[in-house]
Every structure is written in C-alpha cells, then in structure tokens.
C-alpha cells in the first residue's frame, strides 16, 4: 500500500522534494551507529589506559582503523542529516536557510576529512 499521490509516485518525490531518501538514510545510519557506537564505547573501556602508545596501537589495528573510519563517516552523515532538519524547522528565511546549510555541510565535510586523515596516518604508520 502506498500513501503517495499519483504525481509524487510518478516523479518519485514527495512534498519534501527529495522523497523518503532523507528519512531512510537517517534510519540506516541510526542502526549502524547503534552498533558502531557501542563498539567504540566498549573499545574505550577495554583499553588499559588511554596513553599515546596504546591509542596509536589500537587505531593502527586493521579492523579498528576500518571500523573507526566507518564510525566517523556514519557519524558525520547522520549529524548532517540531523542538523538539516533542525535548520529547516527553525530558519525560515530562504536565503539564510541555504547559507546556513552550505556552511554546515562544509563544516561536516572538513570534520570528516580531518578525522579520516588522522586515522589513516596512524594506520599507515605516518604518524609520530
């Protein structure tokens, strides 16, 4: 059963102009973050100390490095989807809304790139 109008069905879009993809992406990243988030918390607690040597050794492990990259990517994407809804709800001026989202999107991409580079540098042994 579909609740969508014939027009939205034919164009694949709803009143939100991008269909249900935003809603679905938020759910998919949520499920991923439950798993990745719990993995990260348990990993932190399982480390004997958070000294530099131990943290580097932990990040450099192949499985840890990949899961950490996935965690960062998913967190940033989920955050971007979340703040987008908040901005759409509270920023009413169209121009200001676009400017705010542009700024937040840039910030999210920069944060993701910095974090990914840090993990990769440690994983490939380029770090200190």
């Amino acid at each position, binding site marked *: 059963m579909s609740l969508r109008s014939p027009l939205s069905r034919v164009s694949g879009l709803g009143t939100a102009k991008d269909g249900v993809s935003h809603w679905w992406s938020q759910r998919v990243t949520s*499920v991923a973050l439950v798993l990745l988030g719990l993995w990260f918390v348990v990993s932190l*607690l399982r480390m*004997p100390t*958070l000294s530099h040597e131990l943290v580097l050794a932990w*990040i450099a492990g192949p499985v840890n490095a990949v899961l950490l990259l996935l965690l960062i990517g998913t967190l940033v994407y989920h955050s971007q989807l979340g703040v987008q809804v*908040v901005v759409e709800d509270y920023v009413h001026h169209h121009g200001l809304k676009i400017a705010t989202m542009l700024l937040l999107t840039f910030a999210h991409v920069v944060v993701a790139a*910095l*974090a990914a580079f840090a993990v990769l540098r440690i994983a490939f042994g380029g770090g200190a």
Partner: protein
Amino acid sequence: MDSTSTRRRPLSPFLTVYRWQYTMSLSILHRVTGCALSVGLLLLVYWLIAAASGAAAYETARHFFVHPLVRVLLIGFSFAFFYHLLNGVRHMTWDTGHGLERKAARLSGWIVFLGAIATTALFWILLLRDHGGAA
C-alpha cells in the same frame, strides 16, 4: 458582518495548544542531545588529530581533556550520547508501529531517561576505575 478572514476558524493542533506533558520534554531532549553530539564530534576529531600529530600534541590534548570543566563537558556529552542512542532505539521501535500507546510510550520514556543516566554513570565508573582517573 463576519467575513471569512476574521471569523474564528478551527485550527489543527500545534505545539502551543497542547498541555505540556513530560513525553514532550523527552522528544525535545532527543533533538537537543543530537545537536550537542554534532558539536561533541569536534572533540572526538580533536582527539584523533592530536594522536596523529605526535606525542607533544597528544600530551596537550590529554591536559585539555582532564581539565575539570572539560571533564564536566565530557560527562554531558556522554549522557547526550547514551540518551540519543537509547531514545533513537525507542523512535525506531515506533517506526515499526509498536509501543505507540500512551502507557507504553510513557514507560519507554522513563526507561530511556533513567537508562541513559545509569549507563552514563556506569561508563564513567568503569573508565575512571580502569584508567586510574587519567583517562
């Protein structure tokens, strides 16, 4: 004399006509903790960059993270994390069509709120015990 535009017309329900219920606070808290975690992401990234930048940078970061005010901030972020996680599961249960009845929704609200406080406390107890307070 009543024109269409001045006559009191029925309104569909919106925020200001609802009597306040604590489940509404929980709903808003989901959004507040979500925004807080977007900011908290910056601290996680700072920690990773510091680790990748060398021993001196990591030492600076460690000093920053053990500062009492930052510690309070981190406890706040960890509560936001656990609350958003638990309440997110609650929201996704609703998405499947379950637990929407008033009684069930109120009960799950309490479980999520108290559960978030309990997991936050447990997390810090384990962290500080295992890492000797220098975490």
